[in-house]
């Protein structure tokens, strides 16, 4: 029964979603949109589950003193800090007790991790966590220099949220992406070698496509390189990309049929 019910549900809904695409009737579209709403419901639960999972994994790292366990505190502080900054914004120029409120919330999280990770004497961190939580709640109730904003423009314009997004998250992600330049250069030097005919063709094509970036070739040579580069992108590249797209499309259809017909059951886990 535990296996049959999911298989039947997948078969029913899978077949419905296929046939619905070809039935342009209002009721068919209503059912389709009703089913789409379930994506959000499941997504919200998945998000909550993801946050809880991250919390548990981090606590486990601290508890077992795994390699770099100290960074788990940073991870959780970042997670809860950004959630907090996204949902709160100050009214004017006064900070009031806001920063103390943030500190209280983060200390509550840290103390709760300490309590969960501790093998003995859980009482002290638990008591401190409760105390900090009480402090945060009192500040939230009585401090009127800031407010909670749930998913609005005000929340996104919050000074702290913008500062963390603009000056921490953006540079970090851009830096990681930029590091590629160094590794690509090193890899190109070591791997891009004319070992055989195919490697030579790839090498020449790559050099021509890159050469179109060079602005000092002059009008005629530049025009020629641009034309050859466009041909490479529009003919060989296009043919290969189309083959990949068609292949992937057929693969998706085959996998979907396998799932709908119950041949592929990986989504049900080991059980």
């Amino acid at each position, binding site marked *: 029964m535990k296996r049959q019910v999911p298989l039947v549900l997948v078969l029913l809904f899978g077949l419905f979603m296929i046939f619905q695409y070809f039935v342009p009737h209002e009721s068919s579209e209503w059912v389709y949109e009703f089913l789409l709403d379930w994506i959000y419901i499941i*997504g919200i639960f998945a998000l909550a589950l993801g946050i809880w999972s991250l919390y548990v994994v981090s606590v486990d790292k601290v508890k077992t003193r795994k390699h770099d366990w100290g960074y788990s505190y940073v991870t959780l502080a970042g997670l809860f800090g950004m959630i907090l900054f996204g949902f709160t914004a100050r009214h004017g120029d006064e900070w009031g007790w806001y920063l103390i409120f943030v500190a209280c919330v983060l200390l509550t999280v840290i103390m709760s991790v300490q309590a969960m990770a501790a093998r003995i004497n859980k009482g002290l961190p638990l008591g401190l966590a409760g105390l900090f939580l009480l402090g945060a709640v009192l500040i939230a109730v009585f401090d009127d220099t800031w407010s909670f904003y749930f998913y609005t423009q005000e929340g996104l314009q919050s000074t702290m949220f913008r500062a963390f997004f603009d000056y921490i998250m953006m540079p970090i992600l851009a830096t990681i992406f930029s590091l590629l330049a160094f590794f690509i250069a*090193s890899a190109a030097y070591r791997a891009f070698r004319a070992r055989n005919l195919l490697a030579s063709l790839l090498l020449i094509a790559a050099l021509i496509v890159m050469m179109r970036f*060079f602005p000092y070739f002059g009008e005629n040579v530049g025009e020629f390189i641009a034309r050859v580069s466009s041909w490479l992108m529009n003919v060989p590249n296009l043919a290969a990309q189309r083959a990949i797209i068609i292949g992937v499309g057929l693969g998706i259809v085959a996998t979907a049929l396998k799932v709908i017909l119950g041949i592929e059951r990986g989504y049900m886990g080991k059980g």
Partner: protein
Amino acid sequence: MTNIGVILTLIVIFGGLLWLLVRSISGREVDRRIIFLFIFVSVAAPIIFQITFKERATPVVEALFANIDGLPAGSKVLISFDFDPAMAPEVQPMANAMSRHCLEKGHKIVFMSLWATGQSLMTTTLSRVILPEFPEKVNGVDYVNVGYKAGNEGVLNVIVSDFKKMFPTDVNGVPLDSTQLFRDIRSCADLDLIIALGGGRPGPKEWVLFVGDPADVPVGVGVAAVVAPQLYPYFPQQIVGILGGVKGAAEYEQLLIATHDRFVDMETPGIDMMGPQTLAHVVIMAFIVIGNIAFFRSRSKGGSK
């Protein structure tokens, strides 16, 4: 200062490359730390000395520019910010340039995002480009920011037939029905152009598959450079133009400056970034050549490599 900078940079880089070439001819490999140093210099020097190059627009960029330019004033353009900060240095300049172009031509813009991180990047474009440069444009009349909606392709599947079902209000909670811009928009079919910015999933490809084709709305895209070759199969039938990476952004900025006097002094991050990118490409090309010289040299000596 700039000329001296250019000369100094070229001497240092090409002198160094020549030295590496001589070493390679004598059969010695280049240490990866030396490669890293060259890339660092080739990226840093153009930033310090503000070395820029004039861009020539490619047909894929020209096509999108011409499409936006050719739309009649009052056309409705949707710009979707489906990217994160990692892609922002490449894609945000495109977003800024195309937003400027659309507003200058009198088009109405609907801003939205399928990525949670896109919401903040959209706010950046609004606060740093639209509000200071187009103070005469009115929120709700000339542009509307409907914000981010979770659901990926599910969102597209709904807005293709009913936009307000998925976005009943704008990001500030104002009902879309009460905005002037949305009086004539029921679904994506009522839009004149969709510009999908991004490079991941959901992104430009999903916009073509789930909205552009079913609703018969032209789709233009701006993507990270690594994604651009994957979108060529859709051009020009399903995608009206492609801006690929910093070069795409720079070409668009160049076209905008060349055709609109108002934008002569505008910020051009795309063109500015092409200096470091061009020089880095030249250095990478040089290293490929040097690597092959070292390879053939070692092979002629009977080496294993």
